[in-house]
Each structure stands twice: as structure tokens, then as C-alpha cells.
């Protein structure tokens, strides 16, 4: 436990090599000046965060082991809720969909975002305008964006119109209502919206790569791919860590897009853990069961955040 905390400390708190160390050695202040006595300034924030994040999460974790319906009495049922989850094919399916959407969207939007960032990095006269355009979907609400795409995938929508215009009528189908294709429509919407975000993170990372190193590599005869693989990519590792961590954590919580596009259908083909938590807790009144699903989702998200932190050696505090 202690070991974990300490290495975690180094990972997170150390800002840059040669920079400030920890808070203790941070400011070699002259005594008397700037002694900080107003610690109680932090109290409202600390209390609010403990209540809303920690107490609520802990209570939710407790309900995961009960059969509470939201009103009246409840009984402690141990691991029954979890046994029920793993015996229910729709819940296993929701788990699979959640993982699929999170990973596939991260891979696709990061590749697309990195490609655009590399293409726009330098040289292009209109790169700032293009950057603004590609980033635009990021600021829109996922709900509103999903309605636009629902229309595009509609049976009478533009996608099928284009398909039949180029003579591929037999490929036209009601995409959102098709059990095989519905999940892919959700994926496309997420990727479309997240690409601009990945692009901006990568552009910021690329801006920190000194042009001299790339020029030196080019003079040494490295081709475009070698320059990217051996020079650029290692330099933007922190950007990769940030973009993928945030992408996975957000991808695991996908909710709005599903509610707008498919509402979990057809026949549960696009249910995710987040939509199941909502339906069980608030539509069906199975608070205990919903909490167990939420606990499962929480554990998955925390596990991935931790693994990601380790693998990429990401330092979220780096500036």
C-alpha cells in the first residue's frame, strides 16, 4: 500500500525533470514571509467534494450489496446482485458493448486525430481555420449531435440515398434499427465527436517537438515514416497518454449517444453499463441492482485509469 502511494506520488507530483520537487522542498521561503495560515479557505471545497464524491460513492457501493428498491426497507443480499449480472446475457452484452465502444472509439479517434494533427502541424497556410473547423463537434452536446447522425442513418436518410445513387441499393438498410449495425452507428458518432479533441491534444504535443531534431533526422536520411516513428512519436508520448486515458474513461461512460440514437435497442444490441444503470435504478426502481452495475462500471474505469497511468507513465500534472 505504502509502496503504491509513494511511486504514485513520484508519478504525479514531480512536475518536470530538474523542476520543483515536492511541496516540502518547493518554496525555500524566508521564515516570517508568506506563512500560510488560512487553511480553512479550503474547507468548503473539501467538504463538498467529500460529500458529493466520496460519501455518495461509498453509500452507492453499500447499496450494491442490498436489494433496495428506492423506498422502504432493504435486505443485505451479499453478492447476489453480481451473480445475477453475470448470469444475465443482456448485462454481459452491455459490458461487452461498453468495452467495445470505449476501445474502438479511442483507437479510431486517436489515429484520425493524430493524422490530422500531423497533416496540419506546419506548412499549411489555413491550418488555424482548419483546426477550428475540426474542433467544432467537440463543443456540441453529444445528445444534439446524435440526432443529426440518427437522421443520416435513417432509412430515408442521406447515407442510403448516396448508396443507391452509386448503385449499391442492396447495402441500404435501417442502420440504427439493425441489430448488427446499430453499435457501429454509435461508434461512428463518438469517433466523429472525439477526433477534434484528440487532434488538439496532439497539436499541443507536436508544438513542443523542436523542429531541429526532425530536420537533423531528415538530413541523416530518415524517411517520413522513420521520422514519425523514431522522432515524433516518442516526443509526444505524454499527449498519447492524456488523449487515450481521457478517451477510455469517457468512452466507458457512454450514455447520451445511446439514449438519442437507439435507446439501447434493437433488442438490447446497444445497451451499455451506463444505460443499464439508468434503466435499472430510475426506470425500474431496482436501486440495489443498479448500484451493483454502477460499482462494476466504477471498478472497470478505475482499473483502466490506473493501468493507463502505469503503462504510459503519464503525468497528468505536467505543464
Amino acid at each position, binding site marked *: 500500500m505504502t509502496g503504491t502511494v509513494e511511486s504514485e506520488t513520484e508519478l504525479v507530483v514531480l512536475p518536470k525533470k530538474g523542476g520543483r520537487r515536492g511541496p516540502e522542498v518547493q518554496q525555500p521561503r524566508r521564515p516570517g514571509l*508568506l506563512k500560510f495560515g488560512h*487553511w480553512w479557505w479550503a474547507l468548503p471545497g473539501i467538504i463538498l467534494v467529500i460529500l458529493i*464524491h466520496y460519501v455518495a460513492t461509498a453509500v452507492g457501493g453499500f447499496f450494491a450489496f442490498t436489494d433496495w428498491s428506492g423506498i422502504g426497507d432493504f435486505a443485505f443480499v451479499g453478492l447476489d446482485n453480481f451473480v445475477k449480472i453475470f448470469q444475465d446475457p443482456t448485462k454481459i452484452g452491455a459490458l461487452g458493448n461498453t468495452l467495445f465502444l470505449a476501445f474502438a472509439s479511442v483507437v479510431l479517434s486517436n489515429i484520425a486525430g493524430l493524422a490530422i494533427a500531423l497533416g496540419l502541424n506546419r506548412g499549411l*497556410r489555413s491550418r488555424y481555420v482548419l483546426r477550428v473547423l475540426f474542433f467544432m463537434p467537440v463543443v*456540441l*452536446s453529444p445528445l444534439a449531435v446524435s440526432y443529426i447522425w440518427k*437522421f443520416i442513418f435513417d432509412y430515408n436518410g442521406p447515407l442510403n*440515398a448516396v448508396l443507391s445513387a452509386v448503385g449499391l441499393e442492396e447495402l441500404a438498410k435501417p442502420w440504427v434499427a439493425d441489430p448488427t449495425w446499430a453499435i457501429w452507428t454509435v461508434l461512428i458518432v463518438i469517433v466523429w465527436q472525439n477526433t477534434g479533441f484528440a487532434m488538439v491534444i496532439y497539436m499541443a504535443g507536436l508544438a513542443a517537438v523542436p523542429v531541429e531534431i526532425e530536420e537533423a533526422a531528415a538530413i541523416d536520411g530518415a524517411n517520413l515514416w522513420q521520422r514519425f516513428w523514431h522522432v515524433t512519436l516518442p516526443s509526444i508520448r505524454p499527449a498519447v497518454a492524456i488523449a487515450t486515458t481521457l478517451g477510455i474513461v469517457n468512452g466507458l461512460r457512454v450514455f447520451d449517444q445511446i439514449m438519442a440514437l437507439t435507446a439501447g435497442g434493437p433488442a438490447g444490441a446497444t445497451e451499455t453499463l451506463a444505460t443499464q444503470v439508468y434503466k435499472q435504478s430510475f426506470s425500474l426502481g431496482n436501486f440495489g441492482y443498479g448500484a451493483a452495475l454502477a*460499482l462494476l462500471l466504477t471498478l472497470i474505469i478505475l482499473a483502466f485509469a490506473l493501468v493507463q497511468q502505469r503503462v504510459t507513465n503519464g503525468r497528468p500534472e505536467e505543464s
Partner: protein
Amino acid sequence: MFRYTKFTALREVVFWIIAIAFLAPFYFLVATSFKSDQETLTTTALTPPSSIDFSNFIAVLTATGNSNVIMGLINSILITTGSILLLVLLGALTGYVIARSTRRWSRGVYYLFLIAIVLPTQLGTVPLYIGARTVGLTGSIWGMIVLYTGMLLPLSIFLYAGFFRGLGTEYEEAATIDGASRTQIFFRIVLPLMSPATGTVAILCGLIVWNDFFTSLIFLGGSANQTLPVAMYYYIGSLVSAWNKIFAIVIVSMIPILAFYLFAQKRFIQGFAGGLKG
């Protein structure tokens, strides 16, 4: 070395084509929203509207009951503004203490907030809902402001703490010598110096609150006070594939944030790129 060549010009053209294809969904959105009911059914999605007709927008904006769009717009503005103000005040105060305090616990408190950033909201939602219902915060604008402030405070504190650490202590020391109190130093010297941080916090948190659907669906669902996403969700649920009306309300919901984005796009992009890196 990297000069503007024919290859660069070609790259420029290719990227403009990609950008136009990328933003094609907006064409369908705008074109369809101006079509009449008859035209929506008879023309394909690619056909532009025969005339610019605002009747869909008028119909959407004047709809009442569970789908009161104007009310949703006002509620969203109130909730977002209130949350931003509280997030800036509490985030700056707490972030400042964490960055400046020499006490041992300040590092522990920092981790408390760091972990809270990744902690998913779903698990806490049920107890929060019950707690908020008990004290009468569900269905009210004040309740949402308190809730959003608590939920996004770790992000706000994390950003502020990062910015405060980068700020040298010279100004504060000089002010101390001049006899200013802690409170004076903070509100009259430090906070004004932090305006880039405040901009980042306001944009990132404001965007999350403005676009949030899950929290407001649960805490405001069924009440008269609804935010724009919830009002939009219920309104669209009551329409059956009337895409011209659906798109009119989608555009109404997009205009405020899109206008703000185009006005302050540089700050938005910097906020996302720099802010999330800390």
C-alpha cells in the same frame, strides 16, 4: 528545410476536402430545418430547401408543457452561470491553499481531488439523488448548481493548483511587506493574475455543465425546471420522425454554444490543450 512546396499546396487542398466531408452533417441539419413538412417527406436529404422558412423554429420555440424550449434555455443559462461562479470561487480558494500551504496534509488533499476526477458519477448518483430528494434539492435550479459545483470542483481545483504552482511568490511577498492581509493579497493581486486559469476553468466546466444530459435527466426529470438537453430529449421523444422540427430544436440548442465557441475559439482550444495537461 520545410518550405511551402507544391506538395504542401496539395496537402492543403486535400485537408479542405476532408474538412468539408467532416462537416457535411451540418448541411443536412440546416437544410432540413428549413423544409416544410411536405417537403421533408417528398425531397431527399441532399436537396436544399425551396425557401427559407422559419416556421419550424417558431413552432419549436412556442411549444409548451413538457417541452418548453425557452424555459430550458433560461434554466440552462442560470445553472451554467451559477455553477461557473461557484466553481471559480471555491476552486481558486482551495487550489491556492493546496499550492501554497506548507502543511503536510495539503498533498493528501490534492490526491483526494485527483482521484475524484476519475471517480465515475454513476455509482454516487443513486445516493445523491436520495440525499438531494430528502433535503429538497431535486427539481430546483439551486440544487443543480450545488450538484454541478461539487461534481466539477476536483477538475477546477486541479487546474487552479497547477496554475498557482507556476506563479512565483514575489508579488505576494512584496504585498506582504507593504502590509496587505492574506485576503487582500488573494482577491486584489493573485486572483487578477490568474485570469488565464479562470478562463480555462470557466470554459471547460461551463461546457460540461451546459452539455450535460445524464445528471439533469435524473435530478430534474419530471419537474417543471428542465435544462435545454432534457427539454430537447422529451420534445423529440414526442415527435415522430418530423426531422424538420427535430432539427429546428437541435439548431436552437446548438446556437448559444456554437456562437460562444466561434467568438472565443482560441481560448476554447487552448483551454482543452493546455488545461487538461495541467
